């Protein structure tokens, strides 16, 4: 969220508000600048406009039929999550109880808490903060009011996710979610030596996901890189945001790692140490699970990326087209959809980020049909397949692309020498 500076001239209305455009839209080139084929080259601007209209109709049908059943659904999920969390926390008060060599309450409490945290972040937090439930006019279940069980403060997450990622989905150089600035997940991302070690970055990122998201939402990387060139105003803004993030992390850690373990100590059979480990494990499970789901959204093979120049003057129809081509689904059971916060319907979510998540499964067949009719690839696979595809990419793309006249090994060595250059390598003159 940004505050508009004082201005005399109003910003022109966003071209993405309408499927039609005042100016005629250009035909898409056959190839992208990288030389790879453009997946939408066969569509004329008129066809894209028609796709936009069709999608607007699909959206309107669902949005007009939102009602008491949907409201009951989200309230039921929230209620279940809160009872599950309370129950799990209660079980952990007795985390130290040992029976035949195992600690049943620890296992029960840890499993319950992991599921509760996942539900809170995925089906509830993510979706409420998207405004999917704002229409109910319930001030407690509202995008402006929700704070989630996560290291990143809601306000910062909403900016980097709802605004930047959802507007610039998969646009190289605009959408930082594409590899989170630490992974090369698309051939068209320029290789650097840093990516050589990306399998390590990837695993570390998954384990610490809530903290890396918090750092990412805070734009910590950008601050560290550009600190010297930043204006005082921007620096002050960063420090203010950082205070907010640190306060959130402190509150989260106090709850999970201090207060609940301390409460366990107060029961006769309690074990602060075991309650502590239970919270660590639950947070890790949540981190790895949410990372697993989220990397399946935009990184699996077959999902497209876009160049900065390709979105100039983009209409709503063209934005829709980019969302469809830039996202991928996971298919599986109802329980799996719930545990992914329905991000298993990533394509549907990216088309209509403010549609209640319980409705995505209903429109999925229509979206698939529309894409297939227009010769567009609807990327979907089992969780194992999609995750496998991403992990393979992480390994494969850690290496530089093959170029004629040189070997990958030579490219890596050259990059390594250049990186070491300042510290006594070849580049040094004296």
């Amino acid at each position, binding site marked *: *969220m*940004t*505050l*508009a500076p*004082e*201005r005399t*001239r*109003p*910003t022109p*209305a*966003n071209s*993405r*508000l*309408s499927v039609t455009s005042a100016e005629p839209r250009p035909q898409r080139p056959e190839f992208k600048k990288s030389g790879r084929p453009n997946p939408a080259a066969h569509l004329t601007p008129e066809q894209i406009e028609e796709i936009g209209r069709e999608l*607007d109709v699909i*959206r*309107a049908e669902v*949005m007009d039929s*939102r*009602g*008491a*059943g*949907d*409201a009951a659904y989200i309230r039921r999920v929230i*209620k279940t999550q*809160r009872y599950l969390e309370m129950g799990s*926390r209660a079980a952990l008060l007795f985390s130290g109880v040992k029976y035949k060599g195992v600690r049943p309450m620890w296992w029960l409490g840890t499993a319950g808490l992991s599921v509760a945290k996942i539900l809170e972040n995925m089906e509830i937090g993510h979706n409420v*903060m*998207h*405004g999917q439930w*704002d*229409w*109910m*006019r*319930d001030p*407690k279940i*509202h*995008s*402006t009011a929700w*704070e*989630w*069980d996560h290291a990143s403060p809601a306000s910062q997450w*909403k*900016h980097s996710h*709802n*605004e930047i990622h*959802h*507007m610039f989905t998969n646009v190289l150089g605009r959408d930082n979610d594409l590899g989170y600035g630490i992974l090369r997940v698309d051939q068209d991302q320029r290789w650097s030596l840093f990516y050589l070690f990306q399998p390590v970055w990837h695993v570390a990122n998954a384990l610490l996901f809530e903290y890396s998201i918090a750092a990412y939402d805070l734009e910590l990387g950008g601050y560290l890189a550009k600190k010297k060139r930043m204006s005082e105003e921007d620096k002050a803004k960063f420090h203010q945001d950082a205070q907010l993030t640190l306060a*959130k992390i402190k*509150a*989260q850690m*106090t*709850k999970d790692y*201090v*207060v*609940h373990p301390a*409460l366990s100590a107060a029961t006769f059979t309690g074990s602060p140490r075991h309650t502590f480990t239970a919270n660590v494990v639950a947070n890790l499970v949540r981190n790895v699970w949410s990372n697993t789901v989220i990397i399946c959204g935009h990184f699996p093979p077959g999902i497209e990326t876009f160049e900065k120049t390709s979105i100039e003057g983009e209409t*709503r129809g063209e*934005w829709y087209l980019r969302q469809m081509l830039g996202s991928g689904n996971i298919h599986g059971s109802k329980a799996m959809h719930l545990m992914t916060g329905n991000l298993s319907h990533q394509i549907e979510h990216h088309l209509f980020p*403010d549609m209640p998540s319980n409705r995505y499964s209903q429109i999925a067949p229509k979206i698939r049909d529309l894409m297939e009719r227009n010769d567009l690839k609807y990327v979907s696979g089992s969780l194992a397949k999609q995750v496998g595809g991403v992990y393979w990419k992480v390994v494969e793309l850690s290496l530089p692309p093959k170029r004629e006249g040189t070997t990958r090994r030579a490219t890596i060595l050259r990059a390594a020498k250049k990186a070491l250059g300042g510290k006594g390598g070849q580049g040094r003159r004296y």
Partner: protein
Amino acid sequence: MDSPKPLAGLLDGARKVAQAIATPLVPADYLDLLDPMRSGADLRGRIVSITPETADAATVTIRPGRGWAGHRPGQYIRIGIDVDGVRHWRAYSLTHRSDSGDGLISITTKAIPDGKVSNQLVRATAPGTLVMLDQATGDFTLPQTLPARALFLTAGSGITPVIGMLRNHLDDLPDVAHIHCAPTEADVIFRDELRGYAAASRLTLHENHDDVAGIFNLASLDELVPDWREREVWVCGPTGLLDAAEAHWESAGLADQLHVERFRPSVVEPGEGGTVTFERTGITLEADGGTPILDAGEAAGVLMPSGCRMGICFGCVVTMREGAVRDLRTGDITTGEDGEDVRIQTCISAAAGRCDIDL
């Protein structure tokens, strides 16, 4: 030294621990699951029964939460009820006897055409439903020292605040005249009760059935209640009646004897474009039906929160105190009654009538 201090310190400590446990939620979020009616919670009520009064009016009896602070007869409450999953707030006069001892409150509502909430209450709400409540408010009440002679002039559902006064104070009012207007005899809410009071000579009642006798004419007061000039008068009904009454008592030089209760029209009529008021900034502007309120506000120098400017990020959401807006993508209209505080996305919303924005 002071004994309250350590106790206060202990309570404060307990509060901090409870907050630390509940974060990022608040303890109330968990307590609400267990007991939504507890004292200290946001005021709620549970509907106990819905009793028809006429073909299109019903009395709704509610058990209020323990935070209920009571009321004076004639006052109203605002009720927040979910209709098709969407929360709407409306004001209704309280009609129950306050000395019944059962702790229940009641309102009486008439289903009006296109009235989302009144139709839901009269026809589609089941006992057991939980509703949101506000404390009672309003100054359309009887004074501490009750008048020696009173006149009540009511029309339609305008009877509701007055029946609250009659049920609670009729025995203490020595001389009451009541004129009530309704389209037909069958439309008279509380007909049997009013006629019962009249039969027992506790008040004199005149019913004006508009379909038979025509719209009530204030000139007939001289004949119906010859001493009307000596009476303290309470009037509640449609705007036309209230305006006429104000003019009538004004011209008689008796304006200070008149009390009126104005119901706001409960259906906002959407149009094309409108006057947008940014209440806290103090800027008012005319916006056309095609310009997002975000753009209109920025152009006028209002500091507007903004984000994607295409309706997906919800970074521009602000509170509309009252008014109507049109979604520029779909043409859908969103209306908010006075006090409903509807939150809108300014980047895709154009004015569709008067809009009061909380900025």
